[in-house]
């Protein structure tokens, strides 16, 4: 399963959500499908995409928040799972693309390739719904269910360690951040 195909499969479901991605390949691939004002790409600060999603989810209970995390990033901030579980906002969907690799920073193997089960860690941390998916059909169904439901969900998607040739887009980081905040302000005026 390719991450790009996963993103393409749920792209239309993201239209009404606020989306936070991790750096590198995940950000570049979502951007390549067509940037929207409701997408925020956290291009550094590995591990903090899930925390950012939690902050958004607690601050905006009427909005659905989708985080596209990665195994390398989540492993740098496993405590985030326990904090998310503690407050378990039902409007937060936490997707982890697990390619068993720190692909965007050199392709070093992570511990999910030697047995660490992130869905298991999420479940044991108290995340109400945590599952692993290995094909596109299951991925699409899991994300749709989580977005339409009201239970904090961590979906670990096992994907190949393949990404785009480059990661830099024409969207500056600060421009993205201001655009994203203005988008949220426009939602609140509605």
């Amino acid at each position, binding site marked *: 399963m390719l991450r790009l195909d996963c993103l393409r499969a749920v792209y239309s479901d993201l239209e009404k959500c606020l989306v936070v991605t991790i750096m590198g390949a995940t950000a570049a691939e979502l951007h390549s499908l067509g940037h929207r004002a409701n997408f925020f790409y956290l291009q*550094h600060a590995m591990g*903090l995409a899930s*925390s*950012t999603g939690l902050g958004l*989810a607690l601050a905006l209970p009427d909005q659905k928040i989708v985080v596209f995390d990665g195994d390398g990033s989540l492993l740098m901030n496993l*405590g985030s799972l326990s904090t998310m579980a503690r407050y378990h906002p039902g409007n937060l969907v936490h997707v982890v693309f697990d390619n068993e690799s720190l692909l965007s920073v050199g392709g070093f193997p992570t511990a999910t390739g030697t047995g660490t089960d992130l869905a298991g860690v999420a479940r044991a941390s108290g995340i109400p719904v945590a599952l692993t998916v290995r094909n596109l059909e299951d991925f699409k169904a899991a994300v749709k269910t989580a977005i339409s439901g009201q239970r904090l969900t961590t979906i670990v998607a096992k994907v190949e360690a393949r990404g785009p040739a480059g990661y830099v887009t024409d969207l500056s*980081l600060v421009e993205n951040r201001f655009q*994203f*905040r203005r988008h949220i302000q426009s939602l609140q005026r509605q």
Partner: protein
Amino acid sequence: MHLIRMAEEDPETVLVRLAKEEEGVGISAGAHLAGLKSAMLMQNHGFLASINGIVSFAHLYKIPLLMLISYRGTFGERDPWQTQGGNVTESLLRAMSIPYSRLDQIETVEKRIRQAQTLAESSLQPVALLLTRDLMWEE
């Protein structure tokens, strides 16, 4: 503990207890993007543990961050394990170009916190207040 209790009892405040302080940078950034103000309460060792998040999120993306840092390891510190953090806290704040001030008198606390928050919001950057021994602990 007292600050945390105040946050917990204030109906206008959402208290988020963290596993590790750096999470607070992401959560505060999310709150800011959602239009809310936030404050991070932590010890100076929590600040040390948050530095990558501060630099590669708050600085990189121009996120206001009000940090209330309990300042351990200074004059009067009895716990040996706290003493190294005290040595490096202010030099790190300066190296990171983070505006900071000490809170040492109860009379100035409210005004200084308000001023720090105003600067964080207007400059879109992290600002720190060091909660000193004189303010925090009776000796």
